[in-house]
């Protein structure tokens, strides 16, 4: 297996996330397991004060977002060398409750090689360093959701 042939898919897109197609793109003949994380727009939120979301408006600094997704994929490969394929996709635009907004998927030959940890690391890192922001539009208007991670030099 040549590392150069390992598929890495990353994108910022306005299109619906197609899990079937994305999984297919990161499945090799040697792949036996995939861990996939998706985030969705919550219409009702309890944690941090109960409230209702009409929709979220996602915005990205696209070229930097795609570069940072590539960096997250590199970080995953260096930590979990058995990972075969990686997909990192952020949907942007106006997104309504129940809609998948983000996907991180990692494939490997076997499930006990870190694919779950790799996918979890991927979504954690995306929420730290990939420049995407969301504005929550509720019944009473809109508000930017506040992030809190301050990247360090070299990140």
């Amino acid at each position, binding site marked *: 297996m040549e590392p150069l042939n390992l598929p890495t898919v990353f994108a910022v897109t306005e299109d619906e996330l197609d899990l079937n197609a994305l999984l297919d793109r990161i499945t090799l003949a040697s792949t036996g397991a995939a861990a996939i994380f998706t985030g969705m727009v919550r219409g009702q939120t309890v944690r941090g004060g109960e409230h209702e979301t009409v929709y979220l408006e996602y915005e990205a*600094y696209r070229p*930097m977002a795609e570069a940072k997704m590539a960096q997250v994929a590199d970080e995953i490969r260096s930590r979990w060398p058995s990972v075969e394929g990686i997909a990192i996709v952020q949907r942007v635009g106006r997104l309504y409750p129940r809609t998948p907004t983000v996907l991180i998927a990692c494939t490997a030959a076997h499930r006990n090689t870190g694919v779950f940890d790799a996918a979890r690391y991927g979504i954690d890192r995306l929420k730290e360093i990939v420049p995407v922001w969301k504005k929550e539009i509720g019944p009473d208007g809109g508000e930017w959701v506040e992030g809190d991670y301050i990247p360090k030099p070299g990140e």
Partner: protein
Amino acid sequence: MNRVKILFFATLRDGAGCKDAELDLPLGATVADVKTLLAEKFPGLEPAMPSALVSVNREFAFDEDAIPDGAEIALFPPVSGG
């Protein structure tokens, strides 16, 4: 002079009132200088500026970093995607 492109996102875009701008920097200007100049030019940036992150040519940058010629500089709040 060093003419750079500035991009604003999220709360910084709301504060600046525009998506992008051009700025002429003195030679040797740093990220801190850019923030000072922008705060003067766009007073609406003030509330969002203290927590703003800066990128230079699509990499995170910090106050003491020098700005290369013709850089693409972005200002935005900590990320909140996903």
